[in-house]
């Protein structure tokens, strides 16, 4: 049978899943952690603890402050050293809580055992509340608070829940490892989320470069007639929710719309696993699976890491920073961001740390556009990146808005295929920010 995929645009970079098949290694807490108060999309959380306060692992330290916001918990036990601004991935300084680790004392009521808890009898509302309490956000990278997604807006209805096990970014294997090792828990998590959302049907999409995961999840869901596992042809950016919906259901999310407009809600496998732990084990989101990888790295690995752990600690655990490192990226090579410092913490949205060699870490010289239209063919949203860049360069933001710049999912396929190495996405991203500003100022009037 021919495998499905999305129909428009897309690229197929080398997969380079160096850490595939590596067991998830549980990392002990580092000496100090920095927990930023804004790890999610939406309003930053409100700090609840004071300097020098003692905290336990799993204790609520910052509370949701607004509708689109969520809770943040201490990922370690110890003393609050500082509540201050810390350098984040961009080099700018944002508010965070620094905790000096001592021991590993957990908050009461959290089930830390590995026992599988299958049964649950919660209502949708209880599930939603537990997910908000636990501070769960989309772990695929967008970090949108999950409890908000579970609230279907009035006048719309959810028919399908899609679970995203695509992991289309090269190098990353965190979701793959999670499916291989925590498959049983994931199935329970899927059922919990289905209940929370009130849907009858769920589809788990996995790309064909993970045949073991497809097989494993298929065998685990044999008895579940409402949960389907589908293999998908390898194609970037299939992990984008709009692309995934189109690949699995052949439904197109309208421009500027959300998946719920076509009756679908998408969650990442990591998010579903976190939901399982939150609902069945009372465990808040204080750790996540992170892939640490790179061609020169001695031991590319998948780690279960406490939120707030410095990146340098992870690299140390993989055999140290290779001498030929040119760039360290948070996330995958396509959408990730280069780090300005190795002391930045792992946050809820960190899916991987990629060490690029000096020789492969530089951009090529920017040459003139030769009108080859490769960027148009590669764009999965049907945009014209070369045009958007030209408009962005000339600050024609109204025109950019007309050209649907806000539909861009920032997958980077255009920049990837450009033979002239033009910084297409840079200008598009900038244009998106400016267009959003325009829209806000229009609303203000």
């Amino acid at each position, binding site marked *: 049978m021919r495998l499905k995929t999305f129909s428009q645009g897309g690229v197929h970079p080398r997969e380079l899943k160096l850490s595939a098949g590596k067991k998830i290694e549980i990392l002990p807490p580092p000496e100090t952690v920095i927990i930023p108060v804004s790890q999610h999309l939406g309003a930053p959380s409100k700090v609840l603890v004071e300097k020098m306060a003692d905290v336990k692992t799993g204790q609520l330290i910052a509370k949701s402050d607004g509708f689109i916001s969520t809770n943040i918990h201490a990922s370690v036990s110890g003393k609050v050293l500082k509540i201050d*601004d810390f*350098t984040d991935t*961009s*080099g*700018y*300084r944002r508010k965070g809580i620094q905790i000096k680790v001592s021991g590993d004392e957990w908050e009461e009521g959290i089930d830390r055992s590995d026992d599988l808890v299958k049964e649950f009898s919660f209502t949708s509302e209880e599930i939603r509340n537990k997910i908000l309490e636990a501070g769960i956000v989309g772990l695929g990278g967008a970090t949108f608070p999950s409890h908000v997604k579970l609230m279907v807006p009035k006048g719309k209805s959810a028919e399908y829940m899609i679970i995203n096990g695509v992991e289309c970014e090269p190098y990353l294997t965190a979701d793959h490892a999670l499916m291989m090792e925590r498959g049983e828990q994931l199935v329970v998590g899927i059922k919990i989320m289905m209940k929370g959302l009130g849907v009858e049907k769920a589809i788990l999409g996995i790309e064909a470069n993970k045949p073991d995961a497809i097989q494993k999840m298929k065998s685990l869901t044999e008895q579940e007639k409402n949960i389907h596992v589908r293999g998908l042809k390898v194609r970037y950016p299939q992990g984008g929710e709009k692309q995934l919906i189109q690949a699995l259901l052949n439904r197109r999310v309208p421009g500027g719309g959300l998946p719920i407009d076509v009756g679908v809600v998408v969650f990442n496998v990591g998010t579903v696993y976190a939901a399982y732990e939150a609902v069945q084990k009372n465990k808040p989101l204080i750790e996540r699976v992170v892939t640490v990888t790179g061609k020169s790295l001695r031991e590319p690995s998948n780690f279960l890491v406490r939120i707030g752990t410095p990146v340098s600690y992870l690299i140390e655990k993989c055999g140290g920073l290779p001498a030929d490192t040119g760039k360290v990226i948070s996330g995958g090579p396509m959408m990730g961001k*280069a780090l*300005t*410092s190795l002391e930045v913490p792992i946050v809820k949205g960190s899916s991987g740390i990629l060490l690029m060699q000096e020789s492969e870490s*530089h*951009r090529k010289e*920017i040459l003139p556009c030769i009108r080859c239209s490769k960027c148009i063919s590669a764009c999965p949203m049907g945009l014209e990146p070369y045009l958007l860049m030209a408009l962005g360069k000339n600050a024609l933001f109204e025109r950019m808005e007309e050209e649907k710049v806000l539909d861009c999912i920032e997958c980077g396929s255009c920049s990837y295929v450009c033979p002239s190495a033009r*910084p297409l996405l*840079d*200008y598009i*991203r*900038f244009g998106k*920010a400016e267009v959003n500003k325009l829209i806000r100022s229009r609303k203000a009037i």
Partner: protein
Amino acid sequence: MNQIIIYTVISLVAIGAGAAVILYFVAKLFRTEEDPRIEVVEKALPGANCGGCGYPGCRNFAEVLVRSESFDGLFCPVGGNETMAAVASILGREAIEQEPRVAVVRCNGTPEFRSLKTHYEGAPTCAIAHSLYAGEGGCPYGCLGLGDCVAVCKFDAIQMNPVTGLPEVMDDKCTACGACVDACPRGIIELRKKNKKDRKIYVSCINEEKGATAKKNCAVACIGCSLCFKACPYEAITMNNNLAFIDSDKCKLCRKCVPVCPTNAILEIGFPPRKTEPVEKVADSSQ
């Protein structure tokens, strides 16, 4: 043959005459009165269409000038007081004099004071670099050095110094139109009073971080210690968010604040050398 020529000429003349009559009446019907002074005022303006006055071009500014009651808030920074006086005499109004101003780059972060920690290869504009990250030197307030201000200057008054990586303003060419002030995504450039002999004293830093943090990224950052604030006899210096600011309208150029600055963040430009140098001065980047 001749007949064809004659017919052609006659018919063309007839069409032309007909069109002329129609145009005459249309012109009468849709006639718009325009103040003839607009033309004259526009001629008096520099014609750079730089937008420094806040209006899209010289023509538009001329219309506004003719329409307005007084010149309050209307000033052509390029032409300066001379032009405004000329315009005032055309319109028979009082000119409001303004001190001539000049653009000043308030960043001192040359490579010798600010070690470069990262290397930026993205789209070569400051606006994009600013939206992505703090900058090669790690200072989230410092100059990104990609020259958005240079590109926007219509008078070739700013250029990048390849050694310092900072833009330099040529005071004699700068018209204080303010285009660079708007173009800089970090707000580093300020229009300051152009004193006699282009003398200037200013805090060449806009970093609002705490002193220790600011200094970690840049040795010549303002650390907000308030020593200059205390030294100033004219209350020209204000302290806000760990940053000193010298108001160029109040500053009397006494230079008392300069030697007390522990990080040499305050620059004095255009002065004769001091007789006894109290502290070793920072190499002047804008000269």
